[in-house]
């Protein structure tokens, strides 16, 4: 048999044909490579959560190789001298070993913790973006629901993981969690007893939390995240309004190569930032807290940030105990309301918000174009109200530290929180609503009369007027329609002299980044500025 010469150049084509004959991938692959994604910085917030989740999986698997999820009492005899000879649970001892006796274990632990904090933070910020821009509207309600669930499942993942080291701080958190379960009317004591297998703390809770933390909850997270991304893919991403952009199209870049490359680079950047934080910033130094002992606690015991709002609501709750005089009598402890009822209400509100809004507005159409927050004042105001509520609770979660550092009475802090929680959200609603209306009005004003130049001209009859630079060339009073996108507010290069100070201070507006008109591609920055001057060209 004669050996054929190996043709390097024909290799890719030949392999491709061979694969296609078996799997018929050419057409779907082309569709995938070509899929168009709109681009805006605010669309990258969800990616941060996704990327931190990947880092969580990677570092978490490493940690399971060394962690021992058991509450058996052992006497510590590792490298960390101050705790040698101390009786502690095997879970705590193995956490100390990961920190001191596993080479590179501490950075893995810290990267795991930081990426968990980042994961939750990115989810919250991403959720705010989706809320304020109306991206949750039909047809994307399902994805909004999945996203809301992801926050709460992430919350559970965080809490179970935080409890695993069985240190002084996390044990106190677990103690509070058991009290919360205990406070549920009718079934509370049965739930607690079943979860802990008897009285708190029992001897099995760490291994139960372990399997939940490394298998059940991550499994659920992976499933939810997959559906979340699959739906984004299927329903195609929303986009900001702009020239050439309609409800029926997607204007952006094809997924490959540029969009995918940017995603890959962004993943590396997120990963790199987590590595820097994990190495340079200490987090959860469990060796300073000591093992969990039911009789030890210190002031300034705060949970991770995403739990603090519940801690805050617990602190603000007045001592209202409901006594039910039947038989021997029953009680609903005050702890029940801020820790079970409040989160329940919050979950329900977030899950059903898209449907409530659609009903309120009687708007059942599909929306693929985003809205600027100012254009929907009531929603933006509601969002700010929710943020205010959340921030007050979170700050109250640290009110003892604030009271201590700023020399304020602790009781005064509690009362300020109680009053603030009721008074400030409506105030935030009102202010936000007014600010939105003001911004809207200013947009319309600029569209009608042009950009304020700051140049004062004296008229022959002695009056002073400010010169406006018109956006439209269609006569002095030609009003431009509002297109749902950024209206230029500062003079462009044509209308003014060079900037007085060079550097970060821009008296001259830079062209808005998002709308790229198909008819008028952005070529040189200078040309873009001319477009603003002539006005017409911003309409497609």
């Amino acid at each position, binding site marked *: 048999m004669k050996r054929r010469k190996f043709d390097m150049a024909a290799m890719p084509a030949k392999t491709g044909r061979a694969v296609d004959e078996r799997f018929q991938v050419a057409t779907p692959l082309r569709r995938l490579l070509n899929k168009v994604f709109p681009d805006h910085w605010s669309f990258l917030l969800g990616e941060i959560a996704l990327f931190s989740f990947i880092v969580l999986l990677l570092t978490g698997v490493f940690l399971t190789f060394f962690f021992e999820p058991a509450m058996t009492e052992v006497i510590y005899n590792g490298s960390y001298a101050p705790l040698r000879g101390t009786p502690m649970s095997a879970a705590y001892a193995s956490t100390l070993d990961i920190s001191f006796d596993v080479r590179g274990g501490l950075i893995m632990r810290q990267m795991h913790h930081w990426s968990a904090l980042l994961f939750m933070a990115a989810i919250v910020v991403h959720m705010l973006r989706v809320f304020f821009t109306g991206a949750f509207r039909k047809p994307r309600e399902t994805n909004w629901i999945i996203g809301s669930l992801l926050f709460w499942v992430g919350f559970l993942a965080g809490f179970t993981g935080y409890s695993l080291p069985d240190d002084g701080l996390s044990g106190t958190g677990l103690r509070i969690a058991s009290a919360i379960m205990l406070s549920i009317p009718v079934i509370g004591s049965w739930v607690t007893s079943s979860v802990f297998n008897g009285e708190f703390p029992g001897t099995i809770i760490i291994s139960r939390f372990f399997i939940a933390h490394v298998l059940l909850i991550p499994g659920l997270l992976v499933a939810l995240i997959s559906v979340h991304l699959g739906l984004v893919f299927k329903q195609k991403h929303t986009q900001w309004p702009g020239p050439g952009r309609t409800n029926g199209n997607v204007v952006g870049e094809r997924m490959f190569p540029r969009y995918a*490359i940017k995603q890959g680079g962004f993943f590396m950047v997120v990963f790199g930032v987590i590595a820097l934080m994990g190495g340079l910033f200490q987090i959860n130094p469990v060796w300073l807290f000591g093992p969990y002992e039911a009789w030890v606690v210190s002031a300034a015991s705060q949970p991770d940030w995403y739990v603090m709002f519940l801690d805050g609501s617990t602190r603000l709750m007045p001592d209202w105990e409901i006594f039910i005089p039947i038989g021997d009598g029953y009680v609903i402890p005050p702890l029940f309301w801020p820790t079970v009822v409040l989160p329940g209400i919050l979950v329900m509100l977030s899950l059903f918000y898209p449907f409530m809004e659609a009903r309120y507005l009687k708007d059942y159409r599909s929306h693929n174009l985003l809205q600027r927050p100012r254009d929907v004042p009531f929603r933006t105001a509601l969002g700010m109200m929710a943020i205010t509520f959340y921030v007050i609770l979170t700050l109250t979660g640290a009110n003892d530290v604030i009271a201590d550092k700023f020399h304020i009475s602790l009781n005064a802090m509690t009362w300020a929180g109680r009053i603030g929680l009721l008074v400030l959200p409506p105030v935030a609603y009102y202010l936000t609503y007014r600010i939105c209306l003001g911004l809207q009005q200013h947009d319309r004003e600029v569209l009608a009369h042009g950009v304020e130049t700051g140049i004062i001209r004296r008229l022959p009859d002695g009056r002073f007027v400010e010169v406006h630079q018109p956006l439209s060339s269609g006569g002095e009073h030609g009003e431009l329609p509002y297109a749902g996108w950024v209206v230029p507010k500062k003079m462009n290069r044509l209308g003014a002299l060079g900037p007085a100070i060079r550097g970060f201070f821009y008296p001259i507006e830079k062209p808005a980044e998002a709308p790229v008109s*198909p008819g008028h591609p952005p070529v040189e920055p200078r040309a873009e500025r001319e477009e603003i001057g002539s006005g017409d060209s911003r309409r497609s």
Partner: protein
Amino acid sequence: MSTHTAHPGHEQVDVNDPRLSQFDIVREGARRDDIEIVHYEPQVMPGSKAERRLVRTVAAMFLLTGLAATAFLVVYIWWPWEYEMGRGGDKLYTPLLGLTLGIALLGLGFGILTWGKKLLPKEVSIQDRHEGAVSADDQRITGQTMAYMADELGVKRRPLLGVSLLVGLAPVGAVAAAPLVGGLISNPHKNNQMMVTGFSPQDGQKIRLVREDGRPIRPADISAGGQITVFPGIEHGVSNLHADSPTLLIHLREADAEESRRNNERVGHGGYMWGNYAAYSKICTHAGCPASLYEQQTNRLLCPCHQSQFLITDNAKPIFGPASRRLPQLPIEVDAEGYFVAKSDYTEAVGPDFWERP
């Protein structure tokens, strides 16, 4: 600079036409997916100064990544990492790993980003969403297919099948849940565990109050105004197995003790104190944290978790914060050998409140 602009109306192009450039084929492919590449423009001129500078920048970032990753390995292998007390070089081990790993990943990330953002051509493509693309016909076909399937099964004509299936499946669901529920469930009132602490007398023997190291306590061990955490003097008394038992033993000053005794008698707790000594549960009745900050001057006990405050001189009743129930009081006395013992167990449930507590 070559700028490709769209021209409307697309008849299918023969992709085997040898005159077509590669880009023409790419654009034709996009069109077949209803994507119009309306704008496509290289950002840098091939061979230009700008391109060379960008290529150098990206290459430098990638090389930085290699350098930092190597540094990571060097640190990982050779840097002294084992923990020692004091300010040893081992304290720099984790920061150095983080720094090198972070720089390596950031170099890679920013290199890729620069490559993608600056060197690749800029483009604007428009894709149709095809929303509501499912025609009414298709909806009808799928709907009828499914309805037909239901007909084929014939559940409507043979209702017994459906009913018996449901009746048969219902216990199967319960079978799936049974082991989980049955295995996990645990009676909270077994051995009256929610009402009993380590201070419950064993075989008629009263339980001593002991310190964390297990030594019993004489009245003289605590000076007036002082307090100490005590535990039941039983096996594992000082451990999380008796997480409900930690108790605060307080030596009140004369005047405070007088007031405290008066208030004790008012609620029927006369004789719970021994001399000027009173013992209250340390487990907060709110959420179970140890209420451990005792303010001598005001005789207030503060729980650091949620800031409930209890007035010791008035039966440890809550006077501020979310707690709604006073701390249970442990009746104490001194035994023949002069050590503190618990007269009996707590007379109320210790720890956080629950539904059936009263």
